[in-house]
C-alpha cells in the first residue's frame, strides 16, 4: 500500500477517526512532570506521547565544545524502543539524528543564546508512544520544558503537521494518515511573532494548496499556542500553591 491508496476521507469529509479536516486530536499538555530536570513537560496529541526534559544553562563537557560567544543548544529526539509496532532498535537512527537537528533549529529562534556564552542548554525529547506527529509533539513539549526551566524566551514555539488528502488540507495527521496521505508538512512557529521556525514536507502539493496549508496551519497553531500558555499558567498556579502550603 502506498501514499494515496487508502481512503482517508469519506463523502462527508470525515476522517478515519471521525475528525473534521481541520480538527486536531485531543491534546494534553502537562508541565513540571519530572523532579530531576530543570524543566519538563509531557505533551500528548492523541496517542502520540512525548516527554521533554531541559537542563541549563550549564557547563559544557567536554570543554572544547563550548562556544565563546553564545550558548550551545543541544537537542536530542529519541523514540523509546516500545513506542512503535515493530520494536525500534535503541541505537539512534539517521532519522532521529536529522530530527534532533531540525528540532534544534525550530527552538533556537526562541532563545537568547548570546546571553550565555560558553554554556549549554540541553533539551532531551523522548517519544513514549508514536502515532504520527512525533516531531511536532516533541517541539511543543520542548518549548514548555524550556519555559518551565525558567530560561528566558522570545516566545513559545508551537508546532503541528498539516497534510493533503486529494484537494483537502487536513491537520494533525495520525500514523495512518502519515502513511497514506499524499503529503505531510510539519510546521513550527514562534508565537506571538508568528515566525516559521520549522518547515518540512514530504509527498507532493500544488503551489495553491501549499499556501492554503500554511494559512490553515497558522490558524490551528494559534489554538495550540493558547494551550501552551494555559499549561504554563496551571503549572505556575500549582507551584505557587505549593509554596503557600
Amino acid at each position, binding site marked *: 500500500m502506498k501514499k494515496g491508496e487508502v481512503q482517508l476521507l469519506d463523502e462527508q469529509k470525515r476522517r478515519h477517526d471521525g475528525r473534521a479536516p481541520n480538527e486536531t486530536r485531543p491534546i494534553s499538555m502537562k508541565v513540571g*512532570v519530572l523532579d*530531576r530536570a530543570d524543566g519538563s513537560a509531557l505533551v500528548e496529541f492523541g496517542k502520540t506521547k512525548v516527554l521533554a526534559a531541559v*537542563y541549563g544553562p550549564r557547563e559544557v563537557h567536554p570543554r572544547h565544545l563550548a562556544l565563546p560567544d553564545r550558548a550551545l543548544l543541544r537537542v536530542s529526539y529519541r523514540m*523509546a*524502543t*516500545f513506542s512503535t509496532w*515493530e520494536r525500534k532498535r*535503541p541505537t539512534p537512527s539517521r532519522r532521529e539524528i536529522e530530527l534532533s537537528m531540525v528540532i534544534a533549529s525550530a527552538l533556537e529562534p526562541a532563545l537568547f543564546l548570546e546571553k550565555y556564552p560558553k554554556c549549554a542548554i540541553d533539551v532531551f525529547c*523522548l517519544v513514549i*508512544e508514536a502515532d504520527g506527529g512525533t516531531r511536532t509533539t516533541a517541539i511543543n513539549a520542548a518549548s514548555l520544558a524550556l519555559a518551565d526551566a525558567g530560561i528566558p524566551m522570545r516566545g513559545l514555539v508551537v508546532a503541528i503537521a498539516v497534510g493533503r488528502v486529494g484537494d483537502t488540507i487536513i491537520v494533525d495527521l495520525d500514523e495512518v494518515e502519515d502513511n497514506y496521505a499524499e503529503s505531510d508538512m510539519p510546521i513550527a512557529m514562534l508565537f506571538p511573532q508568528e515566525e516559521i521556525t520549522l518547515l518540512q514536507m514530504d509527498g507532493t502539493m500544488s503551489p495553491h494548496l501549499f499556501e492554503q496549508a500554511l494559512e490553515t496551519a497558522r490558524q490551528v497553531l494559534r489554538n495550540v499556542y493558547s494551550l501552551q500558555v494555559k499549561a504554563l499558567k496551571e503549572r505556575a498556579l500549582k507551584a505557587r500553591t505549593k509554596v503557600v502550603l
Partner: protein
Amino acid sequence: MAEEERKIIPSIIKENILELLKEEKRIDGRKLFEFRKLRIIPGPIEKAEGSALVLLGNTKVLVGVKMSLGKPFPDTPNEGVLVVNAEFQPVASPYWELGPNEYAIELARVVDRAIRSSGMVALDELVIHPGELCWVINVDIYPIDDNGNLIDTALIGAVAALLTTRVPEIDFSSGKPQLKREEGKPLPIRDIPISCTFAKIGEQMVLDPNKQEECLMSARLTIAVNSANEICTIQKMKGGGFTIDDIIRAKDITIQKAKDLRREIQKQVAEKARGEEIWKEIREVLTS
C-alpha cells in the same frame, strides 16, 4: 550513579543525614527498612504488548515489553528468548549522557538475573518450532526520573510490565508468520521475584535509598527472592564492604518485605484502568 553525582549534597544535609542515622532515623522520615510509596500504572503503552509506569517515591521508571518471533538460542532449542535492556536517557538525570552507559548494563543484567533465576516467565511454553521459531520477549527499561534505587524500581516495573503482557495470535496464512495486533492470551507466568536494595551509610544499612542517601553510601547490596523465599539474585556494588552479619540481616529483611510487596504489585496491576483513563491517572500522578 555517575561519579560526579556524589558531590551534589551540601555538607549541612550530609551531616544531618548522618546524625539522624545514628538515631536510626532518615531524612525523609522513613524507618531504616521502609520502602517509599509505590504506585504502579499498568498498561500505558498501547503499541507495546506489555508496559508499566512505576513510581517508587519520586523515582520513576517506564518499562515496555515487545513480543516478536525469532530463533531459540542454539543451547536452549526448547525455550523462548528473554532480553532485558535498560536505556539511560538523560531525561532522568542531569548526570546522564546520551549513548551506552555501563550503569545501564549493570541494571539490566541484575533485573535479567532476578527474572531468570526466579523462573518468572515460563520460557518453555514460548517455543513454536523447537530450534526454529520461538517468542522473543524484549523488556526495555527507561528510567525517567532518577531519585534513587533504580534497581528495585526497575524490577518492579519489569515484573508489572510482564504481568500485563499479552502474547499475540500468529497468522500463518501467508506462509510467513505474522502477528495479529488484537489482544492475545496472557504471558505464562510462574513466579514473581522481589528485590530489596540496601545502602550502607557509615555503620548503618537502610532499605530503598533515596538519591541523597545514594550519594553518601559506601556500598550497595541487592537481594532478590522468589515466592518460596529462596534467594535468587544477589548483587553487591560500590567501593565499600559488608560484614557477614550485614548480609544475613539484609537477607532476613528481604524475606520479610517481599511478601507484602509482591501482593501490592499484584493488586495494583490487577486494578488496571482502561484506555484514556490510564493517561488521566498518569497526568495526575506526574503533576501532584
